[in-house]
């Protein structure tokens, strides 16, 4: 294999960000035609940075890129695309009010300002592409009304439509359900058959094991090594990533749940388009219990969470915290009553990207006495607080005064989790708590949720990651079209039963 010339080689890439962060310290990777190369590394290792350099979004401080043996230099993503390299980003870049077709042809309208857009032709070409790959998306619905899984397909189609040969996928599966992941992998295999080359980034080792041919591991801006997937094991990869053995296990001692902390009665909530998103839910979460909600995204989970955290109107029904009616209370009142909320949408809701780590570390608790001195905010104490979070959760950040947008995706997520648990809640709502987080930190966060449970707190876990729900929950519900198809014991339920319930078949009632 090493005899062949790689289709792509990045040689000795160094990237120093303007604030002095050394994100890449001389990275060399080779990619061969028609292979799927996995790129693995902890949060902040430099994966996204490396791919942005390749895609012409960042200018490397040093280093060279060779495409089919020839040195290239991309000034912009358009340049990279013209050379057959496409990228789908960790955070999507679609225009929300446009439909799929508009998003896909956006920026390809031809060169003169007056050249006409041939929409019908584009539609035909796109339809053909979708049929060949068996990879469908609705072309005429505004993107904001589509589930994330579909949005991601649009992002991929957008690149394929531009005839790229090398496709970079930065954590494509972070937002997908297991079924969607399967479908995505089927498409990736087809693309591979057609000779496309794919660079695949993921924190999920089993996915990397399944789909890639070779894996290159990066740690702290340096390549640790490259292995053939057929010769690797998840343990080996984890060790390469972290530099020590990783225990991929959650210790969860059996525990009798206590009193009811949180209770929802016949809850009805409307979605953004006025549809009934949550339809008459009733459930409770007890002290010392993790209650999990699984299901394909877009079945009312987001609306449910927003309603019980005061961010969305409750049409009908009641919500109680420790027996007190909290229906319709504002987020601030709820936080003061001991609720914390890890939101699913970290860049739009959980963080203010332009603000510093410090400023973000007190969002939703900034009114607490401990952070003020008379009239003034006590920035000294805020900073000490931010430092604690950074240390406890091993968040890699250039500093507490750095803007949050300069943190890697996983580190942003860790900051939110750290902040929310630092509120010392009685009841914590965790939506997709480990999305985009690396293996070691995922275990840390999961163990933390279990720790809260062991300390007799109540935890509501909502996750598209079925394994996560199965692994952590004491009881779990499967949500479909705004209702629970069943509340089951994760230790007794079979994968088949869950699959049926996710598809809308009501399960046998269990205890």
């Amino acid at each position, binding site marked *: 294999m090493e005899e062949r010339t790689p289709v792509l080689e990045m040689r000795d890439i160094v*990237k*120093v*960000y*303007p*604030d*002095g962060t050394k994100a890449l310290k001389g990275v060399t990777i080779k990619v061969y035609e028609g292979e799927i190369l996995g790129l693995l590394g902890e949060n902040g290792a430099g994966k996204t940075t490396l791919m942005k350099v390749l895609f012409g979004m*960042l*200018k490397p*401080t040093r280093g060279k890129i060779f495409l089919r043996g020839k040195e290239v230099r991309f000034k912009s993503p358009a340049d990279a695309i013209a050379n057959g390299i496409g990228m789908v980003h960790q955070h999507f870049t679609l225009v929300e009010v446009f439909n799929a077709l508009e998003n896909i042809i956006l920026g390809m309208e031809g060169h003169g300002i007056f050249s006409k857009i041939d929409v019908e032709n584009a539609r035909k070409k796109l339809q053909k592409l979708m049929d060949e790959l068996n990879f469908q998306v609705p072309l005429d619905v505004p993107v904001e009304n589509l589930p994330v899984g579909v949005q991601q397909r649009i992002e991929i189609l957008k690149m394929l439509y531009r005839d790229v040969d090398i496709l970079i996928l930065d954590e494509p599966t972070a937002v997908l359900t297991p079924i969607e992941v399967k479908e995505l992998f089927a498409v990736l295999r087809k693309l591979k058959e057609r000779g496309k080359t794919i660079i695949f980034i993921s924190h999920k080792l089993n996915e990397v094991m399944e789909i890639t041919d070779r894996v290159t591991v990066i740690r702290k801006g340096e390549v640790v090594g490259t292995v053939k997937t057929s010769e690797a094991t998840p343990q080996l990869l984890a060790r390469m990533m972290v530099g020590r053995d990783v225990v991929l296990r959650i210790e969860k001692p059996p525990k009798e749940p206590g009193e009811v902390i949180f209770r929802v009665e016949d809850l009805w909530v409307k979605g953004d388009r006025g549809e009934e998103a949550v339809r008459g839910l009733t459930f409770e979460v007890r002290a010392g219990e993790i209650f999990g909600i699984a299901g394909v995204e877009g079945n009312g989970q987001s609306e449910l969470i927003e309603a019980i*955290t005061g*961010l969305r109107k409750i049409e009908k029904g009641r919500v109680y915290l420790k027996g007190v009616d909290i229906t319709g209370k*504002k*987020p*601030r009142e709820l*936080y003061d009553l001991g609720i914390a*909320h890890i*939101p699913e949408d970290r860049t*739009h*809701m*959980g*963080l*203010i*990207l*332009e*603000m510093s780590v410090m*400023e973000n570390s007190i*969002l*939703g608790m*900034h*009114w607490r006495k401990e952070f*003020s001195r008379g*009239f*003034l*905010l006590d*920035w000294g104490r805020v900073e000490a607080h931010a430092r604690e979070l950074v240390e406890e959760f091993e968040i890699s950040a*250039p*500093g507490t*005064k*750095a803007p949050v947008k300069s943190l890697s995706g996983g580190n942003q997520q860790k900051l939110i989790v750290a902040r929310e648990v630092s509120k010392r809640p009685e009841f914590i709502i965790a939506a997709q708590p480990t999305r985009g987080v690396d293996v070691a930190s995922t275990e840390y966060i999961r163990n933390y949720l279990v720790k809260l449970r062991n300390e007799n707190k109540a935890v509501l876990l909502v996750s598209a990651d079925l394994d996560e729900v199965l692994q952590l929950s004491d009881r779990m519900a499967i949500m479909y079209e705004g209702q629970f198809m069943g509340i089951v014991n994760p230790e007794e339920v079979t994968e088949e039963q869950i699959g049926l319930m996710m598809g809308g078949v009501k399960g046998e009632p269990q205890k």
Partner: protein
Amino acid sequence: MSLKNELRSYLKPLGESVLAILIGAFIGAVVLWLSGYDAIAAYKALIQGSFGSLGNFAETLSKSTPLILTAITFAIGARTGLFNIGAEGAVYFGAIAAVAVTQNLRNPVSGILAGLLVGALWMLPAAVLKVYRGVHEVISTIMFNWIAFYLASWLALEVYENPMNPNSTLPIPPGARLPLLVKNSTLSLGFVIALFTAVVVYILMWHTKLGYELRTSGLNSKAAEYGGINPKVAMLWSFVIGGMTAGLAGALQVMGVPPSYSISQGLANVYGYGFDGIGVSLVGRNHPLGVIFAGILFGALNAGATQMQQTGVPLEMVKVIEGIIIVAVAVPGLLDMFLKLFRRDRA
């Protein structure tokens, strides 16, 4: 992030503003030269007229006083995610309020308080329309500025007109006038009050809970709501505080500027500061402390204009230069392009 990098985060916008000013000055010179004037002589006169002597410098600072305050109005709005251009109207009413209140309460404090209060009240309708009816603040504040102009003109002419001098309102009584800082100039304690206000607003925005909530709402209203902040309340505060500083600008303009200590006909001595404040705020990067320097720069341009006029250059030329500077600052993309030309190897 080291201290050096922290400093750099302040230096970058500063550098960009300075660059914009130089670009503005340069293009202005080219325009002067193309129009057949002696650009160097004109600039010399401009600088001489604004910084050349203590008296001239005092004039510069005096002219900057209302600009600093109206720029703060815009800056607070911008930081809260609003494009509040309603300072103009609030200035008029701040001035009227000062004239009205000091006729009986003959002390400067009452005039200042009246300016603050009435300025805030004047902003309230636009704020309420925005928050409860979703009326865009650009539309509402433009309309309110017109209402303000005619209403204030009527008040000045009919209600508070000076029977002795039909060209102005009743003057501020001597006991309520602000002391001058430099003899025979128009520079009064008002300038110090403007500086003090800028510092207070800075502290408010960056060192209090309220400021944190305003800035959060301005940057990401969804995150603000999630964080237990009501973006609507933040907007209300933004309008109210902005109205206060604009109203103060009006009050200081009549209480501190000799010889008339009154509002002249056609609102001439209180007119236009609200609009100019937008440009000052942009050059000052919508930061209350940056606005001090930008305000002094614009004050200098206005103060030096008279002297420049003596070299034959029309007064309007100064407005052209101001305009170019604003455009240069307000088009950061343009600046980024410029910077990239010089720093190709940076990210």
